[in-house]
């Protein structure tokens, strides 16, 4: 079996502008959704209490809402979680509430409601001070990843590559966030982990292509820069699709079998992988070209390294 039977190099660079415009549009849309709708942050970031209960028979949500409201929680969100028998209750932190005791009170209230006794599955309570820290830590982690990868690529390749790779992949991150904002999917710590993992993962996609670009520059003297890029992308496209396909199979398996907890995690990965292929190949490569990469930079690597530091 062989999927890709490509005789000549595909002229990707001829359409470079088109790819980048598409990319730019998605990016702008993502930013727009982020700005207008914002992320639906989980309890971990906002602080609050989350109680998950399981009933042996599907309960009516309305009596539960009413009971909670009567017992002093008018701002409780009650919804089904995964199945009709699982119920998720969210309560924001607010002043005058002894927040560390909320979960027990909620359970008492729920037990008093007619229609089956609830079984406590999970409680998450996050105080207001913790949420802010988590958000700050998340931002720091993102920054560290970006800086770390840029420095590594600049040392290993050339600054043009590191800039192109980071732009292409940060735009993936924004697009994932855009999806979460548009659909108002819950953005939790696990999703944040997925986003950062995607960043590392799709940069590695660019690295594979860049590796080929460097090798082609050194080996094939007759080609100009767009040809070199076309050649590199064409030669690696089979690997790109198979690798991402394999990773996606794993992620799909998590999406199907992993249950609610892993659902958004694998969803973020799915979007990240799909856009990762696109951006790290079809966006990063043109960027490298426009940033003015050329054969000479690889022929005299020592001088280039000095420039890279500047």
């Amino acid at each position: 079996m062989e999927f890709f039977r490509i005789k000549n190099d595909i002229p990707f660079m001829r359409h470079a502008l088109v790819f980048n415009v598409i990319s730019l549009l998605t990016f702008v849309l993502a930013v727009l959704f982020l700005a207008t709708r914002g992320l639906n942050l989980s309890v971990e970031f906002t602080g609050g209490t989350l109680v998950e209960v399981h009933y042996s028979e599907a309960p009516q949500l309305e009596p539960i809402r009413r009971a909670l409201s009567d017992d002093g929680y008018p701002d409780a969100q009650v919804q089904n979680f995964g199945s009709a028998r699982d119920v998720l209750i969210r309560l924001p932190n607010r002043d005058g509430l002894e927040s560390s005791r909320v979960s027990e009170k909620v359970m008492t209230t729920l037990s008093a409601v007619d229609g089956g006794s609830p079984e406590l599955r999970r409680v998450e309570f996050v105080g207001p001070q913790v949420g802010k820290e988590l958000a700050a830590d998340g931002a720091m982690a993102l920054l560290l990843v970006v800086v770390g990868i840029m420095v590594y690529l600049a040392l290993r390749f050339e600054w043009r590559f590191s800039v192109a790779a980071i732009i292409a992949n940060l735009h993936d991150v924004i697009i994932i966030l855009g999806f979460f904002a548009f659909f108002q999917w819950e953005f939790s710590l696990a999703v944040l982990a997925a986003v950062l993992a995607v960043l590392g993962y799709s940069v590695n996609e660019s690295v594979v292509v860049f590796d080929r670009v460097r090798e082609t520059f050194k080996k094939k003297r007759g080609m100009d820069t767009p040809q070199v890029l076309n050649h590199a992308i064409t030669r690696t496209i089979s690997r790109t699709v198979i690798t991402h396909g394999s990773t996606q199979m794993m992620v799909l398996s998590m999406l199907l079998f992993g249950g609610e907890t892993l659902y958004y995690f694998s969803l973020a990965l799915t979007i990240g992988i799909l856009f990762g292929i696109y951006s790290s190949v079809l966006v990063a490569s043109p960027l490298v070209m426009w940033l003015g990469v050329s054969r000479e930079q690889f022929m005299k690597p020592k001088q280039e390294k000095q420039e890279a530091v500047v």
Partner: protein
Amino acid sequence: MNRYPLWKNLMIGIVLVVGLLYTLPNFYGEVPAVQVSSGKATLKLDASSTTARIEQALAAAGIPQTGIFADQNSVRARFDTTDLQLQAKDVIERTFNPDPADPDYVVALNLLSASPNWLTSVNALPMYLGLDLRGGVHFLLQVDMPGAITKRLDSTAADLRTLLRDQGVRHSGIERDGRSIAVRFRDAGLRDSARRAIERFTGDLQLADRDGPDAMPELVATLTQQAEKTIQEFALKQNITTLHNRINELGVAEPVIQQQGADRIVVQLPGVQDVAKAKDILGRTATLEVRMVDETPGALEAAMNGQVPFGSELYTERGGRELLVKKQVVLTGDRLTDAQPGFDGQTQEPAVHLTLDAAGSRIFRDVTRENVGKRMAILLIEKGKGEVITAPVIRTEIGGGRVQISGQMTTQEATDVALLLRAGSLAAPMEIIEERTVGPSLGAENIEKGFDSTLWGFAAIAAFMIAYYLLFGLVSVIALASNLLLLVALLSMLQATLTLPGIAAIALTLGMAIDANVLINERIREELRNGSSPQAAITAGYERAFDTILDSNITTLIAGIALLVFGSGPVRGFAVVHCLGIMTSMFSAILVSRMLVNLIYGRKRKLEKLSIGQVWKPSN
């Protein structure tokens, strides 16, 4: 030509065998067990005698056990069924805690790995499951550090009052104002002499001159950074000790109580479902009391016969002797500012040094002056129940607020008593700022879901790889399987906590790790397409792909490390596994797969064709 030297094959083989050995315990599942650990900070568990006692007790009751294991802090006995486990718990409870009102040991139900004893003896244990997989409660507690510091400043203000009075320096008022103490004087001369007196007295204060609202000279004292730091470290350590003592009551098999950051404590109680009780226990405080011993002749004997004299109480001293203590409290723990283990200046015996605040010092001086030659008792009152920690004889009047407790103590005991005294008397207030409870059914479900995801994902990748790359695909799948094996072995060895995000990381890492083999296989095909001989194609394929694999793994590792550094909770669980997985995947994807390919093809001199699937060549 494509052969690994013997040592390399051996090395890879050994790594895989060791990996298999440490993965094995995970397949055996768990059996019911009963765990015995010390219920008091002053009581050290002696492994061999405890083991013997459990063995005897079970033998006497006719309950068969399948092995008794001891580690530093606990002894555990395994049983075949939960019925036996429950019976055994009762028997052991009765043997170790003859007085249920005052338990010396914690006897708890637990689960132990069912792996054979020889595996346990080489320290091969199953992975340590996080709370989201086994069920339980997780708390993050914030210690009120500003509270601890104001408390200290309040007592310092009282100290200064006493000090200035003793030194004959007249002041016009001492007040604590936020995080500083302001002392007012009539004139600057008094202020200077006060400053000299304070500086001689303590190094913990930073002094500054200031003119007060009505132009009165003031001395502003703030705690030095060093002193603040000491107070904070002290408050944290002592709160952790208190928590340990509290949680012992809950009978939790493997509680985790750890410092997190400068002012936080993580408490994890696996298997605990009664969150309300857990919270009550975490919130309670203990106190210290100093009282005089009732030494009226004949009173002790009368008390032991059931006639306790009015105004006294009967206690059992550590070491088992009965002691009659007066009910009147001389001093409470509020007056204690510090307790440190150390040595007696003259006899070099282990001792505990106590520091009292000013008011406490005065009381103590008066009491000791009036009671030279008598005994005083130091009691720890917890849950309305007292325990005599020590009952020394007063030799001389003790002034200055520095008290030493010594006599028949080991260094360890001195440390324990110091910790206990601090724990009982000085808890800074704490607040729960994070709580996570996972029910046992959800935990089991999470394991199942995580396992299913990995299994089906792996099966799909394996099927595809073998169909697409034939024999080389099979080699890749074996390499991927060995990656999984090594990762699980590494997690078991390190006893890193495995959480649901951790399982997701295992799955994701496997999905990403196949990349290296795809790179290699594609490269080999490309070399073949360009007309290389099969053997040369294998060599070139592996060598050329290596740089790329390295680069791509390092960038992924950078992301993983960032998550590890800044992640907390679920993110950290993900990051640990992710980082380890990247490293094991480098090993298995390159070395293991190459070894297999070398073993299959390496010795064939006339190799015509590789089983790597169809290699399409453009027909010109």
